[in-house]
């Protein structure tokens, strides 16, 4: 059942990139995210699954719908790069081989329980700093974009006056 679910996830992911019309592509993308949420619930990570379905999928799909209002019903034709598929296949093969070689070590490490409860707490402060940096860079990008838009608007106004 899980394998069927994961196969459907991969098929829907590929469909969302290959479909020519934007609304079916968004629908298959949303279905993919929904099935991933079901998969997490099946893994006993119920809260993660519910978060994935209700918060993540909902939020992202609304944002993508906003993108559809700009793009239109059909995706524009773009030049595709022939090496993209080859590089993706290469990364897949390398990751799979490296992972399969590391599986015994991972299982050995999993058999030894880590008792140090402060381990995550210590790295949590680093993560807070990381998130603050990411947040500030996003804010900087937003302000910069708003500035560029304002400059463009005033330029357009001047050209209208002339």
């Amino acid at each position, binding site marked *: 059942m899980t394998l069927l679910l994961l196969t459907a996830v991969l098929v829907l992911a590929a469909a969302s990139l290959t479909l020519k019309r934007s609304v079916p592509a968004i629908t298959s993308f949303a279905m993919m995210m929904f099935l991933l949420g079901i*998969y997490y619930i099946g893994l006993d990570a119920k809260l*993660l699954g519910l978060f994935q379905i209700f918060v993540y999928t909902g939020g992202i799909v609304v944002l993508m719908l906003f*993108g559809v209002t700009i793009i239109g019903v059909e995706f524009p034709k773009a030049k595709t790069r022939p090496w993209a598929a080859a590089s*993706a296949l290469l990364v897949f093969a390398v990751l799979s081989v490296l992972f*399969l070689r590391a599986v015994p070590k991972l299982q050995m*490490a999993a058999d030894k329980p880590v008792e140090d409860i402060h381990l995550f707490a210590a790295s949590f402060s680093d993560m807070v700093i990381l998130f603050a940096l990411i947040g500030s860079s996003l804010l900087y990008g937003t302000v910069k974009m708003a500035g560029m838009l304002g400059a463009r608007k005033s330029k357009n106004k001047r050209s209208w006056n002339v």
Partner: protein
Amino acid sequence: MFSIEMIFAFGLFAIGLYGVSSGRDFLRIFFSLEMLLNAVIMMLATSAHYLGMTENIALAYMVMILATLEAAAGVLIFAVTNKLTGAVIPDEIEREELS
């Protein structure tokens, strides 16, 4: 079962990588970026379940929040770029148009 599920996650990562590097329109690049991050979340959740690494679930929440932030910022950048240049494909944007 753990190995097979992880290989499915690598497959999702590869599809996302293909979408990002194939140079299409903004929307499909966003789809692909979300797929990349979803593959990472999937790897974290699978390893948490099969290897007992429960701290990975907390990390998965963080990646999820990061992905939502990234999508919001990305759509904003797309909207502003489209307003400035009228382009929907990143390769078609001229540097002069943005300055």
